[in-house]
């Protein structure tokens, strides 16, 4: 559970999705999804693997296009944006990939400096160095600055991935399976980091996961996805009072009684 009260503005919708459909050939992944996310809120999207959770957040940043429906992010209708408009929006929406997606050919420091230098023309070397050091400090990995991604552990890669996203100071963070494949201690560290990001930068986040412990630790609101639809929405305790079979199965697997 969180040890702070999140600063959520329930009047300010930063993400508003209406009746979203997406198919890959005959595979209907999203079947009429609607979702509202408010400023400062951490929303956890919970569901089994392959239910289209990642597709949902990829649509939000324009990596995939929807078949139909409205996707409004920070007041802009994503599917209708031109390429330059989409790039402007992406500066305000951070995306943390499941495996970090760090650039193999660059050191950790270069990985962090790369998006900063590219998106801030004229920024001084000293400023870049300072911001890289600050963000590495925020994720607790200052010592890895000269290491290559291949030298990092899975948890470190994810934290550097989060740091690379944070360096652009986004308004929204999208986390794709942040705790998948990690040991319980590292999972707790990642959960704490997600909460710290929310508290320190007042970011709005969507966390895609199938890890109930993560959902409980970081989520202000939980939405449960089943067969391309949201079947339940609410705070953790409320959602998990449900008698739905899928939700019970999640409970049983995660030993939460």
């Amino acid at each position, binding site marked *: 559970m969180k040890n702070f009260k999140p600063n959520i503005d329930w009047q300010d919708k930063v993400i508003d999705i209406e009746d979203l459909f997406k198919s890959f050939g005959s595979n209907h992944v999203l079947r009429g999804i609607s979702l509202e996310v408010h400023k400062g809120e951490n929303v956890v999207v919970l569901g089994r693997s392959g239910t289209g959770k990642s597709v949902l957040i990829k649509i939000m940043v*324009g990596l995939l296009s929807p078949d139909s429906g409205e996707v409004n992010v920070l007041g802009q209708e994503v599917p209708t944006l031109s390429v330059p408009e989409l790039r402007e929006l*992406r500066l305000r929406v951070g995306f943390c990939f499941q495996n970090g*997606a760090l650039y*193999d050919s660059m050191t950790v420091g270069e990985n962090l400096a790369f998006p900063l230098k*590219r998106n801030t023309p004229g920024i001084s070397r000293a400023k870049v160095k300072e911001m890289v050091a600050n963000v590495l400090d925020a994720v607790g990995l200052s010592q890895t600055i000269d290491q290559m991604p291949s030298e990092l552990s899975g948890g470190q890669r994810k934290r550097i991935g989060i740091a690379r996203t944070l360096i652009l100071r986004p308004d929204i963070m999208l986390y794709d399976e942040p705790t998948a494949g990690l040991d319980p201690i590292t999972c707790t560290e990642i959960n704490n980091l997600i909460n710290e990001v929310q508290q320190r930068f007042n970011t709005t986040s969507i966390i895609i996961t199938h890890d109930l412990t993560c959902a409980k630790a970081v989520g202000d609101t939980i939405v449960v996805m089943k067969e391309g639809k949201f079947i339940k929405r609410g705070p953790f305790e409320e959602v998990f009072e449900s008698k739905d079979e899928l939700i019970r199965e999640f409970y049983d697997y995660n030993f939460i009684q």
Partner: protein
Amino acid sequence: MDSSSGQPEKPVVSRGLDNFFLDIYSIFQFIKRFFREALRPPLEVKEFIRQCYMVGYKSLALITMTGFITGLVFTKQSRPSLSEFGATSWLPSLIAIAVVRALAPLVTSLICAGKVGSSIGAELASMKVTEQIDAMEVSAINPFKYLVVTRVLATTVCIPILVCYTGLVAMLGSYLDIHLNEHTSFVTFFQNAFKNITFLDFGTTVFKAIAYGFTIGIVGCFQGWRASQGTQGVGKAANVSVVVSMFLIFLEEVVIVQVANAFR
């Protein structure tokens, strides 16, 4: 944006033929995008220079050895036939024509298709399957301009330079053999060698090299860019890059030689 949802579920003619025409369409779209992005400033100068270093400088040792041996062996193999007619004095001229018109561009581009094409295909494919290209995209960086345009420009610029270098090294290999056997001086060798080389020969070779360089770059990038299926996709991208590049190089050679011969 993706196009995956637009795939037809049932083949129009047959699955294989449909895919073949879809591939042709995709590569033309890819080339069109390359020119659009390449002509739109700014150019990624640092990355372009880094790629030139990888394509050009890192290939020098292999190209030097291959070029030298090609010139030397070709001279050795040609001597017996010319000796039968007492025409060994034609050797420098024969070697120069062969090297400039065909051997230098073909040998260089085939080596680069294997070394550079596979490396580009594998690198981009690996970036694709590990979501590094998507990571660039969501960081508001244009990955096509940064990764594809720089690599294709680097191969298009560096391979013609490597071809000229290979030609020179091959001629040195040939000179060594001729000097050891016929005791011809350096000046006489090169005077005889380039006596019959025309501007058309040189111009055609440079044009060919540019075409081969572009082909190697664009095929490698295209295969890497559309890779899927994890590590299997990386291997496939590297392999297909080499095979398709080599096939297209031979095809272009035939066409360009036919056109060049029409002007002789």
